[in-house]
Each structure stands twice: as C-alpha cells, then as structure tokens.
C-alpha cells in the first residue's frame, strides 16, 4: 500500500481554500440521510459532533465519562494560540505556521500546519460567540499571553482554565444539537472495537459501563476523537481514564499508526512523591512567563538543601544557576518544552536537583512578585498556585515551586491524510488521537487550537466529500462483520473475567510505566530500547497469566474496564519502542542519545529521517510493517533548531 497524504497542489497559502472548493458537497436535503459516529466529546469530538449536526447530519456521540463535558480537554490550563495579531507585535498566519513547524522540529506536514494557522483566527471568533469568557483587558478587548517557542503574544486564555471554558463552549453547542434531536449522546459507553465491513469503517462496538451491555452502532463514517495515550507511562498529566483502546483496536483493524514514539514530556509538573502516586499534575507552561527556573550552582549546596541543612533563602543570588536563561539567552525560560525538560533532567542527573528525591528544579516567582506585586501574580496564576499548595502543602508565594518533567501529550496517533481520514476508508481521526500537525514536539497552546480546528473547521468539509462519494444508502448492523466484532468483544470480556491470578491490573500498569519512563522516556538509546522490548513482552505474557480481574460483566466494573485499557497499553508500548528504535535520529521530544550535537542538543538527520513513520498491523505474532511518508518542505528551510 502506498501512503497518499492527499496534500492539495498549489501554493501553500491557497491549498486549503482550493481544496475546500474541490471537495464534493452533500445536498442539504440528503444530509439527514447520513449518520456519523463520533467517539469522544473533548474539544475535537464535541466541536465535530455539534458542527456536523448543525449541517443536518445525524450524529451519534460517545464518551466513557458520565457527561460529555468531562473529557480531559477540560483540564487544559494555559491557553489557545491564534494568529490574530491583536498585539501588533508582528504575528501572522505565516509566523504561526513557521513557529509550529519549527517547534515540531520539522517533522510535520507544511500543508496541515498552514491550514491550522489559517483557521486559528476563526476559532477565537467562534468561541467568543458561544459565550466563552476569555480574559480581557480594561478596554474590553481580548488579552493575550506568551507561550514557549514563540516570540509574539498570541495565546488567548481564560485564567488558568482555558480548556474548561473552551470545552464548555463546545459542550453547549453539542447540547443545543442534542436538544434539537440531531445528536444522540451515549455517555458511559466505551468503544471496544471498530467494525469494518466491505473495506469501509461502518460502525463500532461499545460496552455500556453501567449495565455491561455490548452493543453495535452503525454509521456512514466513524470519527475517532479519543484523545492521547500518555497513560501508557502510568504516571502522566492525563486523566485516569485516558486510554488508547479506540485507536489501538482500529490499528488492529487496518488503520496505520503514525509516529507512535513521539511523546511530549512537559517540563513544569509537580514532582512525584511516592509509589502511591496515581497521576501527575501539570503546572501550566504560562508560569514560565513570570517564573524563573533554577538549581543551586554546586552539587554540594544542592545536597545540603536536600538534606534540610540549609534553606532556599540561604542560597545567595550568585549561587543560583538560572540554567535556561544562561544557556538560551534569547528565549530564556520560554524555550520549547522538549528543551526545557531535557535541561531539567540534566541538572537532576548532575546531582543538582532539589526536593527530597533530588528529582526536581525550582520555578521561582520571587522576582515577579517583587516587580508586579502579589495581587497581579495572583490574578494571573491564582488557581495554579492554589493547586500547587493543595498538593504539596507549600506556599509558592513564599518559596519557589518544585517542578519536574512529566509525560503530558502524545504527538503520535493514527496516521491521517490531509482530510483527516485514516488508511481505513470512512474512519477519521481528530484531535490528540491523530498524528498530524505537531511533528516531534507540540508547542504550548497548540493542542486546543488543533482539536477545535479539526472539529469546527476541517471535518465538516472533508467528511462531506467522502459521504457524497459513498451515497446516502441506509446503513445498519446487519452485515456479518457486526456480529463478528460483537462476538470478539464478548469473548475478550469473558477472557478478562476468567483471570483470577495474583497481581492487580494496576500493578501491571505501574510496571509498564516504569519500563517506558526508564527506556522510552526523555532519553532513549538502542540498548535500552532493545531491553524494553523484551521486558514489555514478558510483562504482557505475565499479565495474561497472572492478573486478577474481579466481578461480572453486567454491572459497573472498574476492574474490568481497567483490564481492557491496560491490555491495550501493553501492546501499544511495544510499537512505541519499535518506532523509537527505528528512528535513529533525535528530533523534538524524541531524544536518541546516539544523536546529539556537541552541546548536547537534539541532532536531527534530515537526510534519512525526514519522514512520518506509519505502522501497519500484521498480526499479533508478526512484526508491524513500517511505511514512510516522506515530508517535503517547500516553504521553510530545515535548520538546526536554535533558541539561543
């Protein structure tokens, strides 16, 4: 199979408009004859479901939480980018495009990223019209802040709860369509398989998380908007339920998986305190606008601090190493995430980390509080400071925060073409679940932008083209593929329920997380990856022999839900390791120790690796097959990223 990215011809800035014109349209009277299945109700799913229903399509929407509004988009803090140039500081669609391609270390498609930058401006208009209460200035106009990897202020925000406010906007649009009868909402339904019939995606299999009922649903197209798979690392900033099941099952039905190893480790999270820890909490990147990152200059001093022999206030200004400001004078504390994370790890590995475990660096607001006043800092970051205080019992107004990198976002996901269609006709993938737009590293405030771009402004056009092609012939679940997929799912559930071993599913998940963090985390090398592959296989084998799953199917069953998710993570992990091994260069968040510059920065190898890896499933016992989509750069020049 040859990968066709379907990137339109023509100059970069005209591709999307031309493409929109060339796409087939569905006649308004015919739209109601189509059903579209939307799995996931985060920014990507809710915006897609609402927009498609407004156009007249029938939509069936699914989420695993009890309410559509609880999708993990709700937790996004810092903001959303848009090339509005309200600040008159030199921003433009082209600059947002350029920053995003560069930030992604030249591993994203130019055409996709340019489209994203183009529609970014419409997103803000849309959200304001829905009643999203963005932060404003005294003159009544919208306020902006800066984020990493950019030298302009283009980030729109709603205090530290931007994702919440954007999601509530999309959720309200969704509610309006539920009210109109155009969307049927299925909450507490988990998609456990994809139904492919006659070579096309035609439906899904779900388990009702309250009753255990396994059902199939048919549609003319299926949109997966199921978020990221960072929980493969066990500890991450994701919600407890975030999973890979929907995209992993679809991968096993023929959708290629793009760049699975591209993971973003976020520099500013609250450090781990013990084995009991179930998740990690992000402290928004926006804090790096006003917070300064440092560690003690010497190991001796760091050690005395860790032992409690001296206090932070005992360390004189000249004994502090503001390492980001020192190494990257032009971007300072606002270097992209991958750079900031690696530098924090380096400081800790060098024995200069802080906190009891030494796995932390300081993020210090003393200077900002002095310059701006406590009230101003509180107005900007109050909720984040409170959150920090709740978790650590330390007051960040009085002493510096301790932060450390944590798994945050997955740039990888199902491979999609320019229309957001996977390699299975009729199966689309939107938001964090797809691989598009962010290359090897996502810039802050760009995921919210991408989710809403995909849902509000891209899919309404591109899915229409496919639907017009297949025609409005009614679909139902009478095709034998439905019964088969349902039976496979039931068999799998029964298999889980028969597992009465000695080790809990959580223990397996934790073990998997340790392996991934150690060998496929912030720094990777051949020997470690080879070892990880072996360890994952052994762990997976052991899981199927020795895990405990309790209870019955016909009830709410946490242990069964968890078992299904962890079983899929145990398979995905191996593909991530394969991908990381295959990519022998460093790029963005993927740091191969074998490939670094003399200064220890990530060294790309454009000659050999300027491609998207797209993996094809070949069976449980066979190796996945790697396909390569070569990336062609016609507008930006590939240079070694420098933030110095």
């Amino acid at each position, binding site marked *: 199979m040859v990968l066709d990215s379907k990137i339109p011809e023509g100059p970069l800035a005209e591709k999307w408009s031309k493409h929109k014109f060339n796409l087939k349209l569905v006649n308004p009277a015919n739209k109601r004859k189509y059903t579209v299945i939307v799995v996931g109700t985060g920014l990507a799913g809710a915006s897609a479901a609402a927009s498609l229903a407004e156009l007249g399509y029938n939509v069936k929407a699914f989420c695993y939480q009890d309410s559509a509004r609880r999708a993990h988009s709700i937790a996004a803090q810092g903001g959303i980018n848009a090339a509005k140039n309200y600040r008159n500081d030199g921003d433009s669609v082209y600059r947002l495009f350029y920053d995003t391609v560069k930030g992604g270390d030249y591993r994203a498609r130019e055409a996709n990223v340019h489209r994203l930058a183009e529609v970014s401006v419409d997103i803000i208009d849309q959200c304001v019209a829905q009643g999203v209460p963005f*932060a404003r200035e005294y003159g009544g106009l919208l306020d902006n802040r800066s984020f990493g990897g950019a030298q302009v202020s283009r980030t729109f925000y709603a205090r530290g709860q931007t994702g919440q406010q954007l999601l509530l906007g999309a959720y309200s649009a969704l509610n309006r369509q539920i*009210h109109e009868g155009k969307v049927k909402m299925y909450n507490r339904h988990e998609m456990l398989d994809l139904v492919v019939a006659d070579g096309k995606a035609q439906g899904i299999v779900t388990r009702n998380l309250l009753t255990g009922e396994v059902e199939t649903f048919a549609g003319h197209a299926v949109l997966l908007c199921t978020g990221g798979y960072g929980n493969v690392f066990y500890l991450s900033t994701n919600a407890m339920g975030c999973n890979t099941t929907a995209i992993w099952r679809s991968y096993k039905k023929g959708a290629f998986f793009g760049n699975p190893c591209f993971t973003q480790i976020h520099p500013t999270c609250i450090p781990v305190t013990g084995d009991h820890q179930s998740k990690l909490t992000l402290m928004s990147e926006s804090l790096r606008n006003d917070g300064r990152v440092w560690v003690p200059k010497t190991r001796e001093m760091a050690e005395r601090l860790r032992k409690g022999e001296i206090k932070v206030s005992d360390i004189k200004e000249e004994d502090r190493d503001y390492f980001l400001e020192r190494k990257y004078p032009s971007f300072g504390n606002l270097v992209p995430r991958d750079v900031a994370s690696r530098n924090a790890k380096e400081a800790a590995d060098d024995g200069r980390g802080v906190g009891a475990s030494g796995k932390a660096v300081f993020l210090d607001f003393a200077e900002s509080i002095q310059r701006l006043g406590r009230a101003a800092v509180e107005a900007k970051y109050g909720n984040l400071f409170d959150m920090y205080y709740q978790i650590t019992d330390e007051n960040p107004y009085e002493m510096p925060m301790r932060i450390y990198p944590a798994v945050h976002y997955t740039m990888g996901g199902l491979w999609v073409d320019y229309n957001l269609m996977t390699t299975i006709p009729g199966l689309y993938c939107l938001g964090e679940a797809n691989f598009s737009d962010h290359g090897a590293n996502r810039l802050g405030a760009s995921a919210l932008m991408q989710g809403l771009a995909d849902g509000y402004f891209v899919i309404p056009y591109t899915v229409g083209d496919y639907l017009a092609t297949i025609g409005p012939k009614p679909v139902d679940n009478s095709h034998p593929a439905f019964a088969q997929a349902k039976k496979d799912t039931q068999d799998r559930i029964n298999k889980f329920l028969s597992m009465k071993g000695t080790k809990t599913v959580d223990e397996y998940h934790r073990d998997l997380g340790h392996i991934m963090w150690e060998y496929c985390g912030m720094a990777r090398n051949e020997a470690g990856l080879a070892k990880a592959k072996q360890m994952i296989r052994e762990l997976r084998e052991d899981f199927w022999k020795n895990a405990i799953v309790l209870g019955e199917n016909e009830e709410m069953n946490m242990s069964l839900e968890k078992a299904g998710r962890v079983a899929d993570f145990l398979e995905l992990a191996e593909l991530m390791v394969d991908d990381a091994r295959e990519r022998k260069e460093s790029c963005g968040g993927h740091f191969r120790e074998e490939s670094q510059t003399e200064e220890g920065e990530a060294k790309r190898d454009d000659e050999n690796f300027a491609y998207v890896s797209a993996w094809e499933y070949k069976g449980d016992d066979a190796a996945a097959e790697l396909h390569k989509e070569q990336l062609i750069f016609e507008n930006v020049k590939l240079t070694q990223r420098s933030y110095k």
Partner: protein
Amino acid sequence: MSGNMNLTLNVWRQKNVADKGRFVTYKADDISPDMSFLEMLDVVNERLVKKGEDPIHFDHDCREGICGMCSLYINGRPHGPKRGITTCQLHMRSFHDGETITIEPWRAEAFPVIKDLATDRTAFDRIQEAGGFVSVNTGGIPDANEIPIPKVIADEAFNSATCIQCGACVAACKNASAALFVSAKISQLALLPQGQPERYRRVQAMVAQMDAEGFGSCTNTGACEIECPKGISLTNINRMRRDYFTAKFFKEEEIN
C-alpha cells in the same frame, strides 16, 4: 514508614440502584499523609482485590479538581472537611492517625446511586440541553474583538462559568436543590452580550427542566455556597430569580 497513619473507613456499599445498601468497615493501615484521598482509596482497593473482594466503586477522572467527576460525602460534608477543593484534591494530611472516616455517596433523589459511591448526575446535562447555550452555528462569525466586554463583566461571567458540575451544591442542600448549579450557567450567559437574545427563554427552559428532574426548591440556606469547591456565589441565584420573574411577568418583546 514513619508518619504514616492507620485509619478506619466506614464506607457505603450498594450493589446497584435496587439494593438497599449498608455501611461496611475497612481498615486502612499505613497511609501516607502525602496521598490524596482517592489514592488512599486506590490503596484500599488494591488490597481488597488481592483478597478477591469487589473494590469500592467511585467516580473520578482528572484527579486535579476540574472534571467534576469525583464526588464523595466525607464525614458528612461534600468533598470532605476543607473548603474550596474537590475530593481528588483532598490530601490525607487533613486527617489524623487513628481517625474513623465515613464515606457516602451524594444523597439526592435526582442523583440515584449506581453502585457504592457512584451516582447518576445526568439530570444536570438535561438541564443544560434545555437551554444552556447560545444559538450560533459554526462559521460566519464576526471578529472576536467586535464587541468589547468590560473586564469586570467578563471576569464575573468567568467566575460563574468555573462551575465543574460535580453536584456538591445539591448534596449539601437539605432540600437537594440545584439552584446554585443552574443559576451559575444562567448567569454566565446572562452577563455577556452574546447571551442576551435568548436570555429570558433560557432561564425559563432551564428552570422548567430543573423542576422536572425532581430537585428541591431553594430556601436560601446557603450551604451550597460554602461547600462549592469552586466558590460559586449565591449572587448567581439572585440573578436567576430576577431573570426568571422578569420573564414570567413581562412579554419577551417588552424586556428585550
């Protein structure tokens, strides 16, 4: 580890909505004060699972106080003893060694128990479906800066919009009223220019749905405001009442 605590838990167990339910006592030994409340339950659950006993079911997801999925009535208070936080943000350092902790689900007719500590709060979604939106379609929207909004208004709308739909207000109220929740959404949109065209229809539709769901009426006791993890203020209820009565006594064209 030193500093760890031994606790006794009195937990509500109920197999399903039909089951009568009862309290069951569990020992929670060797609990670190750095654990969150839900991590403490995770530990208890892992120990139960190892013994082959069904784990205690509860709702949760983000574990950072924003999704509104966690609930728990702890020692007689929604989200436990501290103000301004959710159960998932509560840490065990708020308890002391040897303490007995009682854990129950939200209790309200409109929130039936699903299993153990998990309840059905979909009534809240239905209230918003009835009118908690601005009727604009995707696309064709004028520039976001076309209508300036005074900062104080935008900030106040934001304050109302921070509600996480957890239901603590209902659980705290002796009447199981949903007035705080419903009024927060109504206020957010009533404060903003974008919400004006549908302001009075919205309030009527949402209040009608709230009543249909079986929530009790608001008698101004104010427990909801105290227990709300997001500090949603009673002022919202006043705004809702004002709009509701305006809508009842005047014709739409007179007020708009």
